[in-house]
């Protein structure tokens, strides 16, 4: 096969057998997820009373914003084949640092910077343990998940800081100029675009995919594996702690239990969006679409008066369904491609 590939004429011939662009787009997991979101919204608008109101979209985004924000850097970490399960605890830790500093008289902005820097340091700690010490990220981030949740709850105890300035709180939850979208949508979009460019259009991003496919091969190809991972863990810590500041202001509530269990919602959205948990495959758009699909599903079922136990069952079933379909489609495609390559090589 390599002989065929090195022959430019054969390579050109091979390329022509690729599917047309529109069909390649249609066959992607993220396309299926986006279609599912559109279908869901059409069905919900038609059958669920009150769904068509702007308030539905406003609250849907407000409720899911923390997950949508945090999943952005974690997607890149999962594509390298690592994982960051500490994000929920980093959110809680940052919320407590933010609340305590503000209550101690530190100006709001400085308190926010303190909290975000704290989150970046936790990310650095995760990254150093994974890259320098060489520990598995699953173990490391489960450790920091427990560690920083404990510190967060310990620092504030059963107290809560709730007296944040009204005008800031009002701004955080207000819609953008009469649209049904809350202010945080801007932050989500800016972060998604920035990280999508980083992941899909830079050498750094190609390195991220290469690490996920094979860290050894990536290292031999000149990808700085450890540096890449370290940067991603720090970015994840920074985004999770910034989300912590946002979450604190959204609910006007700094307590140690904020963001409890969010890490699994983040991973669920990413995997639903077609990102391989083994690394090397996936897109940021898919992960974001996965998060939005879960948010839309939750909102629809809640408005339809369906209990949260059932909602949990539906979300779980949707995840398993999507993973099974992706896996079956993947294995069919691999078999076909294998045959096709054999035929191409034979020719």
């Amino acid at each position, binding site marked *: 096969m390599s002989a065929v590939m090195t022959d430019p004429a054969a390579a050109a011939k091979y390329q022509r*057998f690729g599917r047309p662009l529109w*069909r390649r787009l*249609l*066959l992607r997991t993220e396309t*299926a997820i986006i*279609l*599912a979101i559109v*279908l*869901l919204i059409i*069905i*919900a608008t038609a*059958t*669920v*009373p*009150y769904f068509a*109101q702007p*308030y*539905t979209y406003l*609250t849907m985004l407000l*409720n899911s914003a923390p997950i949508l924000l945090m999943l952005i850097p974690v997607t890149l970490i999962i594509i390298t084949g690592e994982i960051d399960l500490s994000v929920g605890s980093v959110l809680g830790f940052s919320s407590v640092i933010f609340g305590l500093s503000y209550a101690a008289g530190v100006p709001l902005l400085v308190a926010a910077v303190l909290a975000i820097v704290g989150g970046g340091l936790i990310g650095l700690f995760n990254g150093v343990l994974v890259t320098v010490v060489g520990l598995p990220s699953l173990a490391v981030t489960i450790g920091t998940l427990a560690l920083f949740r404990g510190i967060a709850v310990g620092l504030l105890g059963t107290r*809560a800081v*709730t007296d944040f300035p009204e005008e800031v709180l009002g701004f955080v*939850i207000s819609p953008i100029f009469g649209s049904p979208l809350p202010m945080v949508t801007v932050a989500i979009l800016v972060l998604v675009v920035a990280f999508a460019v980083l992941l899909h259009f830079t050498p750094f991003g190609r390195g991220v995919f290469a690490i996920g496919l094979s860290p050894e091969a990536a290292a031999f190809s000149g990808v700085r594996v450890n540096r890449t991972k370290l940067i991603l863990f720090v970015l994840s810590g920074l985004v999770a702690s910034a989300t912590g500041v946002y979450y604190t202001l*959204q*609910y*006007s*509530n700094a*307590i140690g*239990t*904020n963001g*409890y*269990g969010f890490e699994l919602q983040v991973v669920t959205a990413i995997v639903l969006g077609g990102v391989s948990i083994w690394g090397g495959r996936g897109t940021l758009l898919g992960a974001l679409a996965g998060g939005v699909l879960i948010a839309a*599903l*939750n*909102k*629809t*079922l*809640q*408005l*339809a*008066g*369906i*209990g*949260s*136990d*059932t909602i*949990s069952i*539906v979300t779980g079933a*949707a995840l398993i*369904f999507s993973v099974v*379909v992706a896996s*079956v*489609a993947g294995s*069919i*495609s691999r078999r*076909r491609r294998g*045959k*096709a390559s054999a*035929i191409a090589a034979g*020719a």
Partner: protein
Amino acid sequence: MKFTFSKASRKRGVAAVVTVAASAILLTGCVAPTGDDSGDGDANASGSITVIPKSLGNKYFEASDKGAAEAADELGLTFTEAGPTATGSADQVPFIQTAIQTGQGAIAIAANDPAAVCNDLKAAQSAGVKVVAYDTDTDCRDVFINQATVDGIAQGLVDLTSAHLGPDGGTIAILSGGANAANLNAWVDRITAIIEEDHPEITIAKVAYGDDIDEKAYQEAQGLIQSIPDLDAIIAPDTVSVKEAAHYLADTPEYQGKVWVTGLGLPSEMVEYIDSGVIEQFGLWNPEDLGYLASYAAQALINGDITGAEGETFEAGKLGEYTVGPDGEVVLGPMFVFDSSNVGDFSF
């Protein structure tokens, strides 16, 4: 060759279409049944109440929501129970949002966090939805249905104990939970004060702490009974302590009938000790009545009979008339006493 490729892509195309269609069916299946319910909701927009417990699957809240449903039924309110499966601070928020959108007349909520639900409860209030807090107060509600006051609980436990000891009185001990638990300490302080003022015949020998841990509470009960020879009674104002004190008595028949135990307990945990006669009575409040009163308070708010101001009164069916106290608090009533005649009726 070409044939192979087009066949492959056609098959994958079919697979993708099937995937999308299947998701659509999956989603439709979930959403479909809703059309039926909407009619009711629209018809009685203000005649409806959504009860949001701390979490689903909690027997205590199942009991309170049962009471709320019973009252809603008597009042002709459309009743909905909706709540999260977890107790995170903001987990109840989506259910408040749904109640606003479906135009409920009132929300009754036992908030997991007094502050986190406030944005949305305020939004509900400005949308004309009345907000009743029950079991746990929140920072933004019209009235709070308080299951028990410190006085009510302390007086109830002292009355049970003095009725048992009779005019001669005796020596008692208090077995509390955590030494730093604010509500427990308030009860213990009040019990001590009431005994000092009204019951000179009763002596409190010691206050011990079981720390909310089964083994620790068991050992503390053992310590009290063995180290105070003339001990007549133990008051345990904490569910773990009263259960373990009863447990120790059940294990040591020589003290049964000599040391008498009462406290605040859960019927599901205490029923075996009541049935075997190890203890006679214990107190708590009746969560069914709590939910029942919450529904009646919601109806009074919807009707405009009350606004949450001190001194207003409303009728609450079988429970009688209630008065709104300071800060919009409505107190359910004196401590509810469980004994062999009623303990089996409760499942929480």
